[in-house]
């Protein structure tokens, strides 16, 4: 199968083809899902090297499950979001040693670092602020507002109810607003 022919195929079809030994399907899946896994991992972990490691682990799980993939049961991307989210949760838990719904202590100098980042790069400012959120809130906010998933999709990815997703997202956004507020006006985000 030529690579161009894969563009019209769904993720699931590609995964089935991959499971049947089609090498082109492997490359097509990497092109589609590799950036997704990596991007989400970076946003969850805030560390690019660790994100590569996590994305690779998530893709390896995809390769291994391919021969037994049950078609029509779940979207491949949603399955991958869930795997990345779970792997990130495990790493954050090991890294911090705190509960997933607890807000970690801000490291010394984090506030000033945040200000510097806000002045230089809005996106990085958000990334830094996201890193201050409890893990589950961060996951819900990232999936909803950066990855564009719907609340029911997030519920599947995080293996929680839709109401819990709404609650996590709302709390996460309140905290983000507090973290980003100090420099908001200077960056042109004031209430004018």
């Amino acid at each position: 199968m030529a690579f161009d022919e894969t563009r019209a195929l769904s993720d699931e079809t590609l995964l089935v083809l991959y499971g049947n030994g089609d090498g082109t399907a492997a490359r097509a899946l990497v092109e589609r899902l590799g950036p997704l896994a990596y991007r989400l991992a970076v946003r969850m972990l805030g560390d690019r090297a660790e994100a590569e490691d996590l994305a690779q682990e998530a893709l390896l799980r995809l390769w291994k499950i391919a021969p037994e993939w049950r078609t029509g049961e779940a979207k491949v991307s949603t399955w991958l979001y869930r795997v990345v989210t779970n792997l990130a949760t495990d790493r954050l838990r090991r890294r911090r040693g705190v509960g997933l719904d607890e807000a970690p202590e801000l490291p010394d100098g984090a506030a000033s670092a945040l200000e510097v980042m806000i002045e230089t790069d809005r996106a990085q400012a958000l990334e830094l602020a996201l890193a201050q959120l409890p893990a589950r809130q961060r996951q819900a906010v990232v999936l909803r507002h950066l990855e564009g998933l719907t609340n029911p999709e997030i519920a599947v990815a995080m293996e929680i109810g839709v109401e819990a997703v709404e609650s996590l997202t709302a709390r996460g956004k309140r905290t983000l607003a507090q973290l980003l507020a100090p420099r908001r006006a200077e960056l042109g985000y004031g209430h004018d």
Partner: protein
Amino acid sequence: MAMTDGREDDLDLERFFRAARAAAPEPSEAFLTRLAAQGLAEQARFAAPPVLRQAPKRRGLVATLVAAVGGWAALGGMAGGMATAMVAGLWIGLAGAPTLVQAVGLGSAVTAEADSYLPDADVLALAVTQ
């Protein structure tokens, strides 16, 4: 910060989200190449044909039984041995019967009539050898 109403916060945050979406972290080509290589390697592992193993030859019942006792050669030897054993057993059984009976203390139970029904051991031995 004094929280303003939620709608204003949402609007502000959306600007940050938009900036973050536009600056989404992208993986390097080298990393994607490694991912693809890993995928192909994994695929080769599970797609490889199973190692062919010599299927055991099916044997008939007789051949199976023969094999169980060590093959035809062994069976040949066993057949000869069995014949010899049968003859020897017959001789011992007939010639030695009174002696054996006496040896286990049942001599008194063996009557004279019993003796009369047993052919002479020497005669039997002669018959066997012929």
